[in-house]
């Protein structure tokens, strides 16, 4: 279980995140939504130990501050928004970093082909020999996800749930790959892990999240199931624009929702 109590983050003299309480249980996919600059990424960076914070964060009952870097790497993996690379690594070499750094949880001997399996999952079969720097932004994003998956391949290891922290995992992806990636995340949760994802697409959020946390000006504006949280009033208050949940456009305007995807 991930538990955050009264987490606040200040950068310089500016307070970016104030008093956020947040809990993710194993088996859950929690989505963090909110307008730009509302503190989503900053809060995620506090959860992953990248930024200093006040308050308490614990992973599986252990205070996150007390975890050594290599211990934390065996419990959770983190996907950043984008990753620029300074040297010409191949895709396989990047993904392999996940295998050698975390604890994949697969048997020794099976982990040799883990990069290929992870790449196949993110729909990048045959990309192993390509140079990372030559890929498109969306492809790079999926390579990083494959690396992150290798780090915590088994959602549960030694009876302990493990966690994925995903910062806008689908932001640069086409709709097909958005669905593929969200299915991977949901599957990770269904098999006993926990997922925290920052998302912008409210439809995808409603479709996949077990729990939605809405951030607004550094505070938690609402938290709960999609049914509880997504309301006309909340969206207007947080995003500052009038939208109606569940409204269908006029008959002659085409619209495409991810919910209509064939399973």
């Amino acid at each position: 279980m991930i538990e955050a109590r009264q987490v606040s983050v200040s950068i310089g003299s500016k307070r970016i995140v104030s008093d956020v309480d947040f809990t993710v249980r194993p088996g859950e996919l929690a989505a963090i939504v909110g307008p730009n600059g509302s503190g989503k990424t900053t809060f995620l960076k506090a959860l992953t130990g990248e930024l200093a914070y006040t308050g308490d964060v614990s992973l599986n009952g252990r205070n996150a501050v007390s975890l050594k870097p290599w211990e934390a790497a065996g419990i959770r993996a983190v996907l950043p928004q984008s990753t620029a690379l300074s040297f010409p690594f191949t895709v396989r070499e990047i993904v392999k970093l996940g295998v050698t750094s975390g604890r994949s949880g697969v048997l020794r001997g099976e982990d040799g082909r883990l990069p290929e399996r992870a790449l196949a999952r993110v729909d990048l079969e045959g990309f192993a020999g390509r140079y990372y720097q030559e890929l498109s932004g969306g492809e790079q994003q999926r390579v990083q996800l494959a690396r992150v998956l290798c780090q915590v391949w088994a959602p549960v290891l030694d009876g302990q749930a493990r966690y994925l922290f995903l910062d806008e995992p689908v932001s640069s992806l086409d709709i097909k790959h958005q669905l593929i990636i969200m299915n991977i995340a949901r599957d990770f949760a269904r098999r006993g892990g926990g997922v925290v994802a920052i998302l912008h697409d409210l439809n995808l959020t409603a479709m996949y999240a077990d729990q939605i946390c809405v951030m607004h000006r550094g505070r938690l504006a609402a938290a709960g199931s999609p049914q509880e949280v997504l309301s006309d009033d909340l969206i207007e208050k947080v995003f500052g624009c009038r939208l109606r949940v569940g409204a269908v456009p006029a008959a002659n305007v085409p619209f495409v929702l991810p919910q209509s995807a064939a399973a």
Partner: protein
Amino acid sequence: MVDETIAGVAGVNQGDRYVSGDRSGRALFVIGALTVALVVTALVSLTWGASDASALGLVGNWLFGAVPGQEALSARDSIIVYDIRLPRVILGMLVGAALAVSGAVMQGLFRNPLADPGLVGVSAGAGLGAVSVIVLGGTFLAPFTALLGSYALPLAAFAGGLVTTIILYNVATRQGRTSIATMLLAGIALGAMAIALTGILVYMADDRQLRDLTFWQLGSLAGATWLKIAAAGPIIALALAATPFMAKGLNALALGEATASHLGVPVQRLKYVAIVAVSAAIGASVAVSGGIGFIGIVVPHLLRLAIGPDNRYLLPASALLGACLLLLADAVSRTIVAPAELPIGIVTAAVGGPFFLWILLRKRGIVDL
């Protein structure tokens, strides 16, 4: 299916199974080939020179004592080989390995293929430390030199390199991001300051000290002695021995400091260890051979083209190729104007300068100033 020619696919055959994108087999092959090349180069270097002591006789002498039917080494040959050439070859290998590995580690640390101890002022800082001991060793720094003996010179150079690297890192890195422009410009500034201070010391030096100082300006392996090896060797060996433990961390660091830390790398500790190791290796090298440039940038770059940037292979391969290239450069410097000798720094700069320009032209956009 990926078009292999267009995509620039890299991979190796592992047994009968081709693993696309895995260059570890190729890297191991290159490391093996470089090991053989280094042994051959070292043996040839031992026999290369005015005396005609043959490599065969030499190896025979080592392995079996005097070989029947072949003359044992004459006393004169023996002195030339053991007291002049052998120290020079060993020192050349140590310094070459130290320069190349320092370059590779520094490039990994700064996440930039242009970071080179010679280029960003670290060698100049180390030179300042060493010149301080030479000039002030009898007066101002007398207690220091009396305490440390022959280690005073390499340790002072180490201190100079360390201070420069720490300043450089703190100036060029903000919130985990190293600005390339700031790094290069700060390196120029630090190098200029170190050279100015060195100049003041040289101005203060007496004639005997000036003779000691001449090789600093250009870099040379001439005057290699067992004493110098005893002073610099352990420091360089220690620094080189530390690098395998950094390889995995430096690989993760290529993805950025935050991601490296999420992958379980203790980033701060890695940075400290890397900075100390680089400063030690550069300091010891500069102390015994002066400023030999470009090895640290050329060697890792060539090897990245051949085996990729994985530091687990890049670091040992850099040590081998660096040692090899410096022995070759030394052979050139000894023979090109024989019987006189060209400082080796001139040879490495004459070859390394154009090579550096070629890197810039070939990979346009590598320096996003």
